[in-house]
Structure formats: structure tokens, C-alpha cells
């Protein structure tokens, strides 16, 4: 449905997008994950024909995306990272205004606006101006303005930045609902938990390059880490750490500030083996956590740095 091939975008000496290749299928929730400045928004702006790029091709539904391809633009809804609404208009007026940029029929527009207001649950705030809304409600208004015309493709650029957890959950629920109703979603975020929660396929970006792409399971299978065991309140010496490193399936042991982190490849009973080893050496310990690999582990293993760095 959407194909980005060898996309290169430079800002002077800085290469913002470095031969980026992405293919997004109809009906997906496609996540673009990466740290701030990795090129997610630049890629979106190129996709929307807002930004000039140096090289590459972008096609949507087989058509070249150009600034004057209004037929194609009508099928796309954008929810920008920055809330983009008119401060002088009320909630309902803002939604109606942006709907009117796509939908000319008055009755249909009225119906769409009511549906959008209900969708983001802003019924009781319809007469309010944006500055009277909380951050979470404002984000919901931003979403309503982007999806009111019922686009086939919805691009959400970090829609949950600076949003409280309750509103964030609501927004994520809404995105899933839009997808269930048939929209193809492109979702950019630097919050790996969100991407992991809702996206059916994910591309991880770093320095303008796509470093990995696939479902979350496929991405996790790309790396060695199958389980990360963290043990707090433990005092260890180098010799004792050495014995832990010799355990089967353990490939990394980090220790510092009385906290032990053991990374193991996928295998059964990793936790029991590690705790058993500590018990054998008569080492006491505090809290114990065992985590399955996250996208952060994927990012860490591929790039050597944390996603949040």
C-alpha cells in the first residue's frame, strides 16, 4: 500500500534519512520506532510531500505522492506531533473546519463531525476553546481533527507525547479501533511499550536508517537475549560472577551497585539455574525480576545503546 524506496534526505552535511526502505501493507498498524532525532518525523514529512528529499521514491497505492495529488491526499489523515488546531475556534468548530478541507457535503460533514467527537469522547467539551482543555483532551482533539474525514491511511506522529497515562491508554485504544474499522495506521513513537502494545509490524530507525523491521516476535527473535534476570541487593565478588558466567545459556553478566543483571538466551529454567547458583555459593539477595526481551533489548543489541539514550 505504501512503499518507500531508498529515501535519502540531507540537511547540509547531516544525513537525516539514509536509504530508508519501508513497505506498509493495507490494514496494518505499522510502528516507526526510534530515539528522538532518528528520522521518524522526517520520513513522515517526506511521505506527506511536505519535505523535499534528495533521492528515493515514495508511492501510495501505486501512485507517486506529490503535493498536488489531491485525490491521494484525501485518503490520508495526519495527526502531527505538535497539536495543530486553531486557538480561536471551539472543539466542534476545529473538527468541522478540518473536516471541511476534505468533505464538501454539508450533511455528511455534520455526521462525520459528530462521530469524531463521540470517537474521542469530547462531547461535553464541544463548546470549549483549545486553551481550556487539558493536555490529554487537547491530544484527543488533535486526533479528531486528523481522522474526522475517515481516511484510509492515518499517520500519527508521536500522539502521546506529554500525555497522562489515562489519556494515553484512551488514545491507544482509539488507534486500535480506527484500525479495526479498516484504516491503515502508521504510528511513530519513541515509547517502545506503546509500539509493542499496538503495532502489528515495526521498523526500528536509527540515524535515518531502518535497522530492523518485522513483527515484534520477529524482531525479538533476531537477538540473542531470551530472558533478562535482574537481582537487587546482592553482594558479589569477581570469582562468584565468573561462576554465573559459566552457567548454560548465560551470555552476559553485569554487576554494579549491588544489582546483578544476567542475560540469557531462550531456554527453560534460566531463573532457577541462576538462583540455584547463588544459593550454592551461599549468597543472599533481595528482589528478583525476570523479563522477556523488549524492543529496547533489540535496539540495544543492534546499536549498542539504549533506545532512550
Amino acid at each position, binding site marked *: 500500500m505504501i512503499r518507500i524506496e531508498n529515501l535519502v534526505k540531507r540537511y547540509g552535511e547531516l544525513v537525516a534519512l539514509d536509504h530508508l526502505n519501508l513497505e506498509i501493507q493495507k490494514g496494518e498498524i505499522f510502528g516507526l520506532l526510534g530515539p528522538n532525532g532518528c528520522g521518524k518525523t522526517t520520513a513522515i514529512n517526506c511521505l506527506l510531500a*511536505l*519535505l523535499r528529499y534528495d533521492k528515493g521514491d515514495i508511492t501510495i497505492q501505486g501512485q507517486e505522492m506529490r*503535493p*498536488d495529488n489531491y*485525490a491521494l491526499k484525501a485518503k490520508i489523515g*495526519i495527526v502531527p506531533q505538535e497539536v*495543530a488546531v486553531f486557538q480561536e*475556534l471551539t472543539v466542534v468548530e476545529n473538527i468541522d473546519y478540518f473536516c*471541511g478541507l476534505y468533505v*464538501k457535503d454539508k450533511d455528511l460533514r455534520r455526521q462525520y463531525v459528530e462521530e469524531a467527537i463521540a470517537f474521542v469522547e469530547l462531547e461535553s467539551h464541544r463548546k470549549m476553546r483549545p486553551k481550556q482543555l487539558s493536555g490529554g483532551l487537547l491530544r484527543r482533539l488533535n486526533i479528531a481533527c486528523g481522522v474526522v474525514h475517515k481516511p484510509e491511511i492515518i499517520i500519527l506522529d508521536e500522539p502521546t507525547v506529554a500525555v497522562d497515562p489515562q489519556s494515553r491508554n484512551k488514545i491507544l485504544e482509539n488507534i486500535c479501533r480506527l484500525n479495526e474499522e479498516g484504516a491503515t495506521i502508521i504510528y511513530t513513537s519513541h515509547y517502545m511499550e506503546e509500539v509493542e502494545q499496538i503495532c502489528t509490524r515495526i521498523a526500528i530507525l536509527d540515524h535515518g536508517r531502518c535497522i530492523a523491521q518485522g513483527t515484534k516476535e520477529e524482531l525479538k527473535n533476531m537477538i540473542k537475549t531470551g530472558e533478562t534476570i535482574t537481582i537487587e541487593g546482592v553482594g558479589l565478588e569477581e570469582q562468584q560472577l565468573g561462576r554465573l558466567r559459566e552457567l548454560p545459556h548465560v551470555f552476559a553478566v553485569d554487576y554494579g551497585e549491588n544489582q546483578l543483571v544476567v542475560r540469557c538466551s531462550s531456554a527453560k529454567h534460566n531463573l532457577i539455574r541462576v538462583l540455584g547458583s547463588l544459593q550454592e555459593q551461599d549468597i543472599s539477595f533481595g528482589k528478583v525480576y525476570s523479563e522477556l526481551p523488549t524492543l529496547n533489548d533489540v535496539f540495544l543489541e543492534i546499536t549498542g545503546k539504549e533506545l532512550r539514550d
Partner: protein
Amino acid sequence: MLHLMKYRGRITLREKTTVFWSFIFAFILTTLMYMAFGGISTTPDTMETALVMEDQGAEAMALKSVLTMLEDSEEKLITVEEMTRGEAEKKLEKEKISGIFIAGEKPELLVAENGLEQSVLQVIMEQFQSRMNFLSDVGREKPENQAAAMVSMMKNASAVYVEEGALGGEKPDPFIQYFFAVIAMTCLFGCYLGMDIATQLQGNVGAVGARRMVSSTSKMKMFLCDVGIAFAVDFVVSVLLMCYMRFVLKLEIGNDWPRMILIAFVGCLMGVAIGVWVGSMTRIGEGVKTGILTLTGLFSSFLSGLMISDIKGVLEQSCPIINRINPASLITDALYSITMFPDDARFIRDIVTLVALALAFFGTAFYKMRRVRYDSI
């Protein structure tokens, strides 16, 4: 298009800062100026003045005639006693007179202090000088009409200030030039509306602009709707201001409504065009753009006589090109040319210049904004 225009209208009218500076401020300023000047021109107290004849040239004699006619007018704005400079200065020192008119090679006014009476005398002197400059213009541009203009002006000298018809058959107020400058300023204050439009039409300036640019409505359509509404709002306010001056304050700004409305029309077009042009500059921030527009508007109005009535005359002699391209001067000049000193050629020149400038500003601004993709956002 109606949809876009309806919301642009709401956005414009709900933006409090714009509403104040573009609309309400003009009415407040007009009212304050009327309170300051209006009462003076309608029911003035007679002021005692002295006339010192230091020269017998044309300008000195013209001043003497004007003052004599003012003294003889029904309103009796001033009394004039001819005396020597020494006697006059003594009287001024003892506050027995309000001011001294020196009819020398270059007429002057001497006052001892600042006050209402001194301001009126100052205006009389400025008006006189302004009309002398006008005569000089006529002499330069249409020498064959200079004698007639001189005769007409001398015949109606007192009327220029107080009562009877001036050259255009209107009943002018000595302070009317200030009100013309306020009209010009109001037209040009449409620039703020223009700047907002330009900002919201560019994908690389603000988030709203970017959201609009990725929609399926063409930029040209949005541009036309937005400019149309900004212009309409500014135009309505300017015409309402003229009506307020003419029918509520009873100021003699003229009765040639078709041409007055045409002036407001092109003046507002010019104002919005300047705003769109400045707003289309992407490398400077909104605060700087607002500063540029405020300075441009006020400086342009200043040069057209908003604060110093004779400045246009001074510029006409020293650097006439400024008067030919300064939008506020063109607007006030067009108003002058249909009220005070009817001159169709001058009126047409002013209107054509304004239209040409507005089209140039709109054209270059849209050319800059039309870019299909941005280098950076």
C-alpha cells in the same frame, strides 16, 4: 469556499489582539483626536496674537491676509495686532498674547509655553505652510493654474481654517489631515490579518499550516478565501470608521463616497498585501514580523502626517519619491485630492500606484509561498 471563509471570519474576529489593534484602536484614536481637536475647531475662544512684518514678500503678505481674514471671520478665532518684534516679545512674556506670527521670508510662530491655544496657533501655521507648499506644487506641476489657485486660496483663506468652502467646495476642518492619516493607518493595519494568513499557509512555519498543506484543498483556494476575508473585514472597518467620522463626529472628511470607498478598498488591499508579504518570509520569527509590520504601519502613517501635519510637505520638497510610494501617504493624498484640492489625475495616480504595489506584494508573496515542497520543516 464558503466553509473556509466562514471559519476564517470567525478566527479573525475572535483574535483579541488583532481585533483591538486593527479595529477598536482606530475608533479610540479617532475619538480621542476628536476630543482634543474637534471642540477647538467648532467653538474656539478668541486668542490674542501679534503679527510682526519683517518682510514684504509674497509669503509674508499671504500670511498677513490669512490672519486678517481669520480675525474677520464669524468665529473670530484670533485677534491680530501688528507691532514690532520687541513689543510683541514683551507682550508674550507678560502673557498678554498667546503667540507671535513672524511674517518674514520664511513665516514663523513664536509661543511662550505649551498649551491648547498654542497648539491651535501651531496648527494654523502648519496649515498655512501646507497650503503654501501646495501652491508651490501647483506652480511646479501646473504653472498655468498657480495664479488661479493663489487667488482662490487668498479669497478663501479664512475658510480653509474656519468656515467657508475651500478649493474643493468642501467645508474642511483644520485638523482633518490627522483623521485622514488615521484612515490610512486603519487600512494598513490589515497587515496583521495578512501576516496571520501567510503564517497559516506555510507548512514549514507552524503546525496548523502543515496540517492544512497536507489536506486535499489547494493552497490557492485557501489563499483566496483567507485573503478575501481579511480584506473584507479590514475594508468594512475602514468604511465604518469613515462613517463614524462623517456621520457621528460630523468631521469634514468629504462626501464623495464612491471614491472614498474606492480609496478604502485599495488601501485595505495594500494593507493585507504588506502583511502577506512579510508573513511569507520564513527565516524570521513571528515576533520580528509583527515588529516589522508595526514599525512599517506607524512609520508610514507618521510620514503621511499622523503626528506632524506638515511632514508630507517637507518630504514633497526634499524627497518626493517617499510620498509617491509610501502607502499611507498615497491614501491620505488620494483623500486630499477628492476633498481639499480636487485633482483627478492625482487621485488616479495614487489609486493606480496603490493597486500596483498591492499586486506586487501579493504576487511575490504567493510566489514565495507556492513552493510545493520545503527544504526543512
